[in-house]
């Protein structure tokens, strides 16, 4: 009976809920949130990256009591927020180059340490700046265990420059450089890399994946990351309505389907070992995820469903579910 009374209509699935005590509500439900990324930015309608960045930095601001410096790699997130001299950032924010955000963050952290300051450092970038162009700098930051949380907002291609493929682009996705033509339409199977697993291979204290599909899960992970020192990595899945060809109001739905079908597993790892996973709540077929995005249109062209290719993606999702034990979460 005491168990049953803890039912709160929507529980913690929504941002807030008047029935929950304030501590259990998301940072995003509070009028006191920092709005680290404020209004007036030039991101597209329904931008998943703008949303993810505010969620992450507001949570980090709360976790550090506002003692935070943010270093940004080049990319959409930098371009749409900061057309000089205007800025959407309501945190101390620093941009240098595409490739060196991790190194600059290392430098800021070293500077803070030498000043005896408790100010913490977050570095952030898109999948291109993180996994391709800035990967050397990032790996260096990891192996030196510098006291930085690096956040990658993964929208699976170079969106700012016109949707070119990156090493995060999934198989079959059409981009400007992987057209849906020929015997292997879209991005090829076997290309790309898994940044969270590579980060884990550095044995750093904390690695996690998160998604704009799950606000509470994301905020919990930022808070957990800010509780520890040393190199930390957070990989956030952020749908891009422009590059993915999804409706602007489907951003969260698309992200949710990616998680629920198993293509984007949510987990936390400490010192190289997966320690927690967020279980799938309502399992979905990958096809439900693909159908909302025009970059996968070629799989459904002319009313025919490309069952064979979809099955290969489904196999990847199934392998994730098995590998990360996503159905039970234990």
């Amino acid at each position, binding site marked *: *009976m005491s168990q*049953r*009374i803890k*039912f*709160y*209509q*929507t*529980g913690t*699935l*929504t*941002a*807030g*809920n*008047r*029935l929950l005590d304030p501590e259990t*509500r*998301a940072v*995003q*439900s509070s*009028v006191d949130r920092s*709005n680290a*990324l*404020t*209004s*007036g*930015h*030039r*991101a597209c*309608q*329904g*931008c*998943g990256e*703008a*949303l993810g960045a*505010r969620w992450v930095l507001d949570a980090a601001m709360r976790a550090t009591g506002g003692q935070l410096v943010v270093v940004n790699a080049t990319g959409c997130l930098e371009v749409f*927020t900061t057309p*000089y*001299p*205007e*800025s*959407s950032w309501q945190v101390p924010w620093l941009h240098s180059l595409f490739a060196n955000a991790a190194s600059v963050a290392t430098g800021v952290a070293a500077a803070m340490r030498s000043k005896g300051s408790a100010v913490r450092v977050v570095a952030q970038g898109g999948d291109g700046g993180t996994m391709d162009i800035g990967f050397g700098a990032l790996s260096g930051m990891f192996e030196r265990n510098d006291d930085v949380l690096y956040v990658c907002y993964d929208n699976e291609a170079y969106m700012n420059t016109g949707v070119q493929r990156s090493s995060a682009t999934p198989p079959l996705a059409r981009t400007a450089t992987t057209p849906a033509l020929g015997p292997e339409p879209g991005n090829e199977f076997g290309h790309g890399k898994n940044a969270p697993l590579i980060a884990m291979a550095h044995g750093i204290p904390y690695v996690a994946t998160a998604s704009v599909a799950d*606000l509470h899960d994301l905020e919990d992970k930022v808070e957990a990351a800010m509780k520890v020192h040393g190199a930390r990595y957070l990989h956030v899945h952020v749908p891009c*309505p422009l590059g993915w060809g999804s*409706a*602007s*109001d*489907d*951003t*969260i*739905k698309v992200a*949710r389907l990616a998680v629920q079908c198993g293509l984007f597993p949510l987990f936390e790892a400490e010192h190289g070992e997966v320690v927690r996973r967020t279980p799938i709540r*309502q399992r979905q077929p990958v096809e439900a995820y693909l159908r909302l995005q025009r970059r996968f249109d070629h799989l459904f062209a002319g009313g025919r469903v490309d069952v064979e290719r979809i099955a290969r993606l489904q196999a990847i999702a199934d392998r994730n579910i098995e590998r990360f034990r996503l159905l039970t979460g234990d």
Partner: protein
Amino acid sequence: MDKPFAITLDLGSSRANHTGSWRSRRPEYVDRLPPCNHACPAGEDVQRWLYHAEEGDYRAAWQALVEDNPFPAVMGRACYHPCETSCNRAKIDEPVSIHAVERFLGDLAIREKWPLSAPLPPTGKRVLVIGSGPSGLSAAYHLARMGHAVTVREAMPLAGGMMRYGIPRYRLPRDVLDAEVARIFDLGVHFEPGVRVDDVATSVAEGGFAACFAAIGAHLANRVEIPARDAARIFDAVDLLQRVEQGEAPRLGRRVAIYGGGDTAFDAARTVKRLGAEEACIVYRRTQAAMPAHAFEVAEAAEEGVTMRWLRTIKRFDEDRIVVERMELDEAGRLKATGEVETIEADALVLALGQNVDLSVLEKVDGVRVVDRVIEVDDRMMTGHPGLFAGGDMVPSERSIAIAVGHGKAAARHLDAYVRGEKAKAPPPREVATFETLNPWYYTEADRTSQPAADPVRRRATFDEVNGGLTADDALFEARRCLSCGNCFECDNCYGVCPDNAVIKLGPGKRFRIDLDFCKGCGLCVAECPCGAIRMVPEDG
């Protein structure tokens, strides 16, 4: 001007850039009509009173409930709850047990002796209500709260109508009914029991009444000619239930057959069992599926040992048996007699074949029209005679307590306007919050709470209540299963999911506002609103 090294322009905020100009559609907060409210014949705002109950504020919940219906404890027991049939939660797991929460609130109010809020200042108008059933008392309640001086005349010795003389005690204990009726009379309603109104026009004129609401119900039983050696052993179900309520114990014998398949037939069968009959057998001419009785009535009766014979018509009633003819359905699904007869042992036969209105009271009034054995009323519930309103079982409509209460409420609104020489304004129509307007992802899984039921074997021998109420914990749990369809419950999702920080949170109870300077019209707030309380509308131009 002194500027830091390499800075040549003043730093500005992107808030200078009004991205709202990109927008071609804008989100708009709405209050859609929840399907439960839409389905409630009594016009209850179910979602609103559940909202208070979710917070554990039962007093506020009860206050909101009795705004529309003064009988929560009665309704929570006797209403067939069409609200639950239409509840969107049924598409997730099971409907919210609205009736059980309603009953909990009603019982709590009786236990805590919560009073109804005081009426408005007296209007000086006198109103006559004929009949103290659910419709008459509902009208009396609303009229009294509007400040009118209400007199209720009732032919029977006690108030309640079908709630008292039709619904058996095991479904509606009389102390519950008495308490809710007394609360209405405590508002200053003048009650005259044992007074049968025969001449409405004269009663209204002599009493100085500005208007009258008639709700005398449908008490006359339909009869069929059944050849019988001893007509004294054939009973009408309505009459039987009424006599039992008045303390009589009609001599029925050991085995009783009940003819009919409606709720009254089952009420009669279950009552007969409790009066000591060893066998109570329902005889119904159509199929089991065609029985108009509600499924729970049939199930509870079966638990209590009531037997059923479908597809049988009664031909005659001999000494100690009835002779029935077997019916069957032809290929077109039409009922067809087979000519095969069989017998069912029976000492008494109860007829439950529907009820009619005693039209003699109203049909002689000027302007009143009778259509199909009921009194015709317009959309204001007014008969053809100005100032004479009618409702409940005597007007063209389906018949239930909730419908009767709804008629009383509607009639009160129009009657009030009539005596003021005005016309009641209809509330603006609201779009129904269908399941498709919701985002069900956000609702956590929770199975419906069930009410405790008394042991079927013990039930057969007593008129004690069959179904128990919910505990406070269960009632809270059940209230929180409400999805709040179409009405904001301040979950902060819109505020949280806006990529442009363009939703302004106004604080507890004040909901949200869209900052149109920055809203780009992406629609994420609409898509991620669990309860469908936001919609997209095109920008003008």
